[in-house]
C-alpha cells in the first residue's frame, strides 16, 4: 500500500485522533481524513495542522 514509512502524522481536527497523511501533501491541499472522510485543508506542515474545509454546496445541487 502507500509507503507508510514516509507518512506524515497529524491530529484529526474533528475526532482528535492521530491520522496518517501521504508524505507529499502541500500547504493548501485538501485531503480527506482516513477516520471521518471529511475534507481537511492542510494549514501548515511543520507541525502538520489540519482544518475542516468548508463544504462545497454546489456538488449537491437542489
Amino acid at each position, binding site marked *: 500500500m502507500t509507503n507508510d514509512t514516509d507518512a506524515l502524522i497529524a491530529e484529526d481536527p474533528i475526532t482528535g485522533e492521530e491520522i496518517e497523511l501521504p508524505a507529499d501533501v502541500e500547504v493548501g491541499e485538501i485531503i480527506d481524513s482516513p477516520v471521518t472522510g471529511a475534507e481537511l485543508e492542510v494549514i501548515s506542515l511543520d507541525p502538520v495542522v489540519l482544518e475542516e474545509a468548508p463544504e462545497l454546496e*454546489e*456538488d*449537491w*445541487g*437542489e
Partner: protein
Amino acid sequence: MSDNAKADGGTSDDTYTASVVGGTGFTGGELLRLLAGHPNFEVVQATSRSNVNKTVGRTHPNLRDLDLRFSDPDDLESVDVLFAATPHGVSMEAIDEFFEAADTVVDLSADFRLPDAAGYDEWYDGHVSPEYLDRAEYALPELNGENLPGAELIAGGGCNATATILGLKPLVDEGVLGPETGEVVVDVKVGSSEGGAGGGAASSHPERSGVVRPYAPTGHRHEAEIEAYLGLSVSFTVHAVDMVRGASATCHVFPEEPVSKRDLWGAYRGAYAEEPFMRIVSGGGGVYRYPEPKAVAGTNYGEVGFELDPGNRRIVVFSAIDNMMKGSAGQAVHATNLALGLPETAGLEFGGLHPVGSP
C-alpha cells in the same frame, strides 16, 4: 392588453403575451409547455444563453411542434408577462430589466420569496434588490390566494417548502400546531429533476440511480420559507430517491392536545375542500391509500393525508406534489391565472396517468 376576466371557473377570451427566461431549464420547459397549451397565453420568446437560435423542441422533445427558437436573454421582447426560471441570484440582478420588458414578472427562483432582506442575509448571500421584496407576492394560491389578484411580482415557492406548507397549513389554521407545539420533523424525499438540468457528478445516472441519499441533512434553505409563511420552525431533512419528478414530505407532528381522526378530517376538508388542485388521500383501500408523488406526476395537483399514532399522540402528515408543477411551473401559472383574473385552472387541467412508473 385586454381586460381582466373574473376567476369563476368559466373561460376568458383574453390573450396575454409571455416570455420565459431560462427556457432550456427544467422548469422553463414546463412553463413553455403549460403556456403553449394555455388558452389565454401566447408565448413570444424563450431565452437561452447556450442554445440561441436552436429550436425549443431540440431541448424539450415534447415541444417539437412548437414553432419557436431560443433567443438571447439580453434581447428581451416586450410582453405582458415575463416568467423567469433561472438559478438563484439571476432575477434579483435583472429585475429592473424584467419590468422594463413586462408588466408582470413571475419568478420561480428564491429571489423574491422571503418577506425581507434579513432573511436573505441569514439564509442566502444577501439581496441586491431588496426594494422589490415588499412588492412580491408568494405564489402558493392555497396559502396566499387572496393577495394574488393584481400582483405584479410573483415569487414561486420552493418545491420542498410547498409540499411542507400544504401538509401543515391545515394544522396551523386549526391551532393544532403553533410555534409552541414542540418539534416538527419534516422528512422529505425528492426526485432528480429538482436539481435542474445542469447536474454534476452526483446526478449522473450510474451514481444517482437507486439511491436513498441524504442530500440536505440539515440547514436546507426552504426552512426559511416555511418559517416565514407558517410561523414555525421545522426540523428539515431532504433525501434524494430514485424518481425524476416528485417531492414527498412526511411531517411528524406532536400536538399538545390529543386530536381525533374526525378533527383531522375537519381541518383538512376545511382547508382544501374548495381548492381545485388539492386532494385528501388518507387511508381507504386499494393500492393508493396515502399521498404519493407518482399519483400527481405531471399535474398541478397536491395530495395530502394523515395518520394518527395513538400510542404517542403523533400525527403523521403526508404531502406529495410534482416539484416541476405544483412545486414550481404549475404553481406559477396557477398564481398568474389568479393575478390576471383568468379562470383558476386554465391551462392546468391535466390529471395524470395510471399506471405510471417514475415520471
